[in-house]
């Protein structure tokens, strides 16, 4: 697989504190290295506040990282100012979580779809654009198109609006779409069909997806042949092929996260406690040099307060010092991973 986008050493600090208080910067992303391959699906999973949405906005260019390099197909995105991003970065598009907020409430669906195509295809006639919009509507499965195009966002259901967002995102023929929790506000019975639609766009159009979510179950569904990156307090803790990570989670945080996900089968119930030392999420402000998960980690040792590097096994990279120890302790307790 050829790499499509590479993120190197991305750091993001937000300035906090106002006029009178002392300036403090919050380090929300720390040393993120990530490669997104052509046509692949990467699931970015983590709890709220782990920086996954910030990372998504950096990929789409809405935020400029404090440090680091972004390159799309070898072409560097000058990160100092968004304006300077080369136009090729139009190939990176964004699907937001709240489909109602993502569409202008006073513009019809047609207007919302028409404007971007018009802007970037100035030579097209209206008819060409209309044909394109028709194709998009067929692709996303809203038929007959005319019935939806004349409507305003509030006249559509959440699932339909989310489909419109997908149509808008693919209207500029992107190579990569960042989807930020696209189904979390959608009814359960419709989620699957939307995820299927995304898989279909991925397969038919070869569009790579970065699927940002806190829900591991949907991440597993959409990125079953893709990759999973687990984030915690601004760092990628574990990253590798989805099936490998899920069948054998190595990082203590990934282990806890997988245990916490409820399984829709009462026979799989267990009253087992999560392998965590503390349930409280430690603040992002007061983390030190070392592993951000250390304060909650049951396997923590003194070394964990020093900076950690990735360990790579079976194509999975893990940011943990005590992997062997964790492995040994878990093997000793025969509870098995979730199979």
């Amino acid at each position, binding site marked *: 697989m050829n790499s499509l986008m590479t993120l190197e050493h991305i750091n993001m600090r937000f300035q906090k504190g106002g006029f009178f208080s002392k300036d403090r910067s919050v380090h929300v992303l720390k040393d993120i290295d990530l490669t997104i391959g052509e046509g692949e699906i990467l699931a970015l999973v983590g709890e709220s506040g782990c920086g996954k949405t910030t990372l998504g906005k950096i990929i789409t260019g809405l935020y400029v990282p404090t440090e680091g390099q972004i390159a799309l197909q070898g072409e560097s995105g000058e990160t100092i100012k968004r304006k300077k991003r080369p136009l090729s970065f139009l190939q990176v598009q964004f699907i937001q979580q709240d489909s109602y*907020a993502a*569409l*202008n*409430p006073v513009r019809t669906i047609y207007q919302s779809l028409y404007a*971007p195509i*018009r*802007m970037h295809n*100035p030579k097209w006639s209206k008819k060409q654009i209309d044909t394109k919009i028709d194709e998009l509507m067929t692709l996303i499965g809203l038929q007959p198109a005319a019935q939806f195009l004349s409507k305003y966002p509030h006249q559509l259901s959440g699932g339909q609006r989310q489909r419109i967002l997908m149509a808008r995102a693919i209207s500029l023929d992107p190579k990569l779409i960042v989807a930020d929790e696209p189904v979390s506000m959608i009814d359960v019975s419709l989620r699957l069909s939307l995820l299927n639609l995304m898989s279909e766009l991925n397969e038919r159009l070869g569009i790579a997806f970065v699927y940002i979510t806190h829900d591991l179950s949907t991440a597993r569904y959409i990125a079953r042949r893709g990759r999973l990156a687990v984030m915690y307090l601004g760092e990628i803790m574990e990253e590798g092929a989805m099936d490998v990570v899920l069948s054998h989670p190595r990082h203590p945080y990934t282990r806890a996260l997988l245990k916490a996900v409820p399984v829709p089968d009462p026979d799989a119930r267990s009253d087992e406690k999560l392998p965590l030392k503390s349930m409280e999420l430690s603040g992002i402000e007061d983390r030190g040099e070392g592993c951000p998960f250390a304060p909650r980690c049951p396997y923590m040792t003194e070394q964990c307060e020093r900076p950690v590097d990735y360990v790579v096994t079976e194509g999975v990279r893990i940011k943990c010092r005590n992997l062997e120890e964790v492995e040994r302790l878990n093997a000793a307790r025969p509870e098995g991973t979730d199979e």
Partner: protein
Amino acid sequence: MSEKQSVRSDPNGGKWGDFLSRAGSTFAALGRTIKNAFVKLFSNGQACAGFCIIIFFILLAIFGPMIFPYDVTTNFSMRFLPPSWEHPFGTDEMGRDIFRQLISGTSNVLQIAFYTGLITVAVGTLLGIISGYIGGIVDKVIQGLANIVLTIPSFPVFLMLAALFTIESPIELALALSAWSWAGLCRSVRAQVMSFRERDFIQICAVMRMSKFHIIVKELFPNIISYVLINFIVAVRNAITGSVGIMMLGLAAYDPTNWGSMLERARNIGLVNPKVIPLLLAPLLAIMVFQIGTVLLSNGMDEIMNPRLRVN
């Protein structure tokens, strides 16, 4: 900006066709919007009543003088007549009919109010949008200016402006009145724009590389248009009070039938004189009814357009 260029660069000569069809669809959309606005307007009792009152005054200003022409000739034998069928509001100190004076002054009062509203809203909205969307140094300069204007009380400034320049037409008076009234609107429009700037549908425009022109004109402006309209009515309301005040103080005495001028004459004769009561009350009554109309309309529109107040 680049939208214009895009039209020009079309080599197939389809430029006009495309332009017309786009204009056509814009007009159709505008027509729909206006029709919807009226349907909504009449579904709200307050707004409907306010609208009717204002329409009544507009009609009065246009057709009133034709039906009840105002005769300026003085007739001292008819001074200070009490109200009667012939003179519904009585006569003034020179024997002229007050009712007809009032009607003849309506047009002037409304013109001043309308122009003031227009200038205030145009300047305030434009600066507000620029300030809120572009930000940075432009924002700082505009807001600095607006803050200066807001901290200096407006009425003395009206008085000073009116004294410095001889005011002889509604437009000039409107300019003097709007000079100090745009700042408040500018600040509130800026606040609105800034809240919209963080909204998802504006952010996605940046990802899709839409032009600033498109974002401001097509995405932002339609969202604040109702807010601007309500503020237009508020500006009109303030302009009436302001202009009548200036007129009453005799600072822009170019039209003797203006309601403010009528009040000024009543004041000159002496407000304790019971004979001037009709001359005093008639313009006050007219102002009051018109203000009630604007209050009803703006409140009603607020109810229609503000989803939080919207019933059902």
